[in-house]
């Protein structure tokens, strides 16, 4: 049963990111995994091993696309060639939804290849929502935007990050990929209460949740996806699913990647929170 209009896939449960070091294990052992999230850009090519592996994965698993270069928050026009390549991949994977970040990263046709933070202004929200609508209309697939980790804030901001997220998704009428690790990282870097963020977003728009680890430095936290999930992030996750209901959940582990079993085991820790939620729901 759909949890909300943007979450028709409550049966997806827990997934992990499809990463090169795990290819052989997955293809030979065929482990039971709810679904795999792929980085779209790694497969937006015209041939070779990436697409061959993807096709083998698609024969056995459900795949959801996650992008890192759409840059919904950039102030220039969407790149048509990019969209065409992405649409070819969407048709190949049959992804039920497609996510990318609420950020910008290119200007005047030059790419930084980073997820740069938005100024939280109404002007930025309007431009961003328009680009999300255009992308959705072209790609013909539901779109979810993910909150990013950030290390800087702008003087010009007119609202909090979660108010900005609300403003964008309401204007664009799109879903949210809620990254609770990113909320935690940004809360430490900017000094806000992460629960205010989780409590402040429109739960009815959350289609997916990301969990991940990070690296702590003396004066800031960096979103490195190279550690297990820490307890405060699990607590945010627990609060998030209390608000959203059962939601497709994905563990990101992108650097210093351990064995498949270790990554999968870490992801499956989310089950205890989902089961607790199920029990609580059953009682009421």
């Amino acid at each position: 049963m759909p949890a909300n209009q943007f979450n028709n896939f409550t049966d997806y449960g827990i997934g992990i990111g499809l990463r090169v070091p795990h290819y052989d294990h997955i293809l030979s052992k065929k482990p039971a995994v709810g679904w795999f999230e792929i980085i779209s850009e790694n497969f937006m090519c015209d041939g070779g091993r990436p697409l061959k592996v993807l096709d083998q994965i698609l024969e056995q698993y459900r795949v959801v696309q996650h992008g890192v270069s759409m840059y919904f928050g950039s102030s220039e026009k969407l790149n048509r060639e990019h969209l065409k390549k992405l649409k070819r991949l969407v048709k190949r994977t049959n992804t039920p939804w497609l996510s990318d970040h609420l950020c910008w990263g290119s200007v005047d046709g030059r790419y930084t290849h980073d997820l740069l933070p938005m100024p939280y202004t109404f002007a930025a929200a309007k431009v961003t929502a328009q680009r999300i609508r255009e992308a959705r209309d072209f790609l013909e697939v539901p779109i979810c935007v993910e909150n990013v980790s950030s290390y800087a804030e702008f003087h010009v901001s007119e609202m909090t990050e979660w108010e900005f997220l609300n403003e964008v998704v309401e204007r664009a009428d799109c879903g949210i990929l809620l990254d609770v690790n990113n909320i935690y990282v940004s809360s430490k870097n900017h000094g806000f209460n992460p629960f205010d963020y989780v409590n402040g977003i429109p739960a009815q728009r959350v289609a997916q949740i990301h969990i991940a680890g990070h690296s702590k430095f003396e004066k800031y936290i960096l979103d490195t996806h190279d550690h297990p999930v820490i307890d405060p992030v699990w607590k945010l996750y627990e609060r998030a699913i209390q608000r959203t209901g059962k939601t497709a959940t994905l563990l990101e582990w992108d650097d210093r990647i351990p064995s498949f079993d270790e990554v999968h085991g870490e992801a499956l820790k989310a089950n205890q929170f989902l089961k607790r939620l199920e029990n609580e729901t059953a009682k009421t």
Partner: protein
Amino acid sequence: MKLPKPSRQTAGEFYALQRLMAAAVMRPLTRGDKMQVKWIDGSPTKVVVNQFIKPNDRLTSFERLEIYNRQYWLRIRQSFYEDYPGLCAILGDKKFERLAGAYLANYPSQSFTLRNLGSRLVKFIQEEPRWVSPHKQRALDLARLEWAHTEAFDNEARSPLKLDDLAGLDAAKIRLQLQPHLTLLKLDNEVDDFLIELKRKSGLRSEASNAMEQNRRHKKTRLAGRLKRKTNFLAVHRYQDLVYYKRLDPGQFRLLTALQNGATLEKACAELAGLKISGDLGATIQQWFTSWAALGWFCSLKQSK
């Protein structure tokens, strides 16, 4: 109920802010990997940055933006290293980093994917060889080979022609197209052996993600000293999802290059005139085509009327 504040930033100001921040993020770092203290116009960077980035209780505006400036270069360098380990090995880390910085200052990335980062590197080295001096020719050879490797890795493979498809056709009227993943190279050094040995001793390219990079040091190699100077003809291609460097005879290279440039089969074969080819020329060419067709190198056929 609290009403939203009226809009203050305009769309034009939003665009201007992104241009300003992108300029700061993509500016080269100092030799100590810090953000430059002077802005483009010579004024203090911190004064410029203070105008748009908020400080917090631990970091100044300058330090907060510096995180992005450093991450940009870390990511770019890492990607460059993964795509050009051979070039890095002959130049050394420092020189390689300076080359990457100068190249990107001239040719910033214009693609959504880091895969295309090196697409204009050969052109840049030809334009500004001082960044690879005194290794210009070796650097050019490696830049060509490593870019060809990238192209071979994931370019399209079209349905291959079989040798039978050519039987009975008029060589004066047919043009054969080579696979998009195949690159023909004439090199001055035996960089293929060098690169194979180097990769055997190290890891493979990684993939894109949205995570921040942490600094990595690369092992220097002594293999560069053993790089041999010798004219070398190569076909860089993909076969059964693996990239291969196939050495070619001068005649094979000349014939294939002519076909790739759109010559008819007859004219391409005529390119062999003047070359010393042992044995029966017709039988030799037949043998070559059998081998190339088995590798799936030909993907389409055009016939003139």
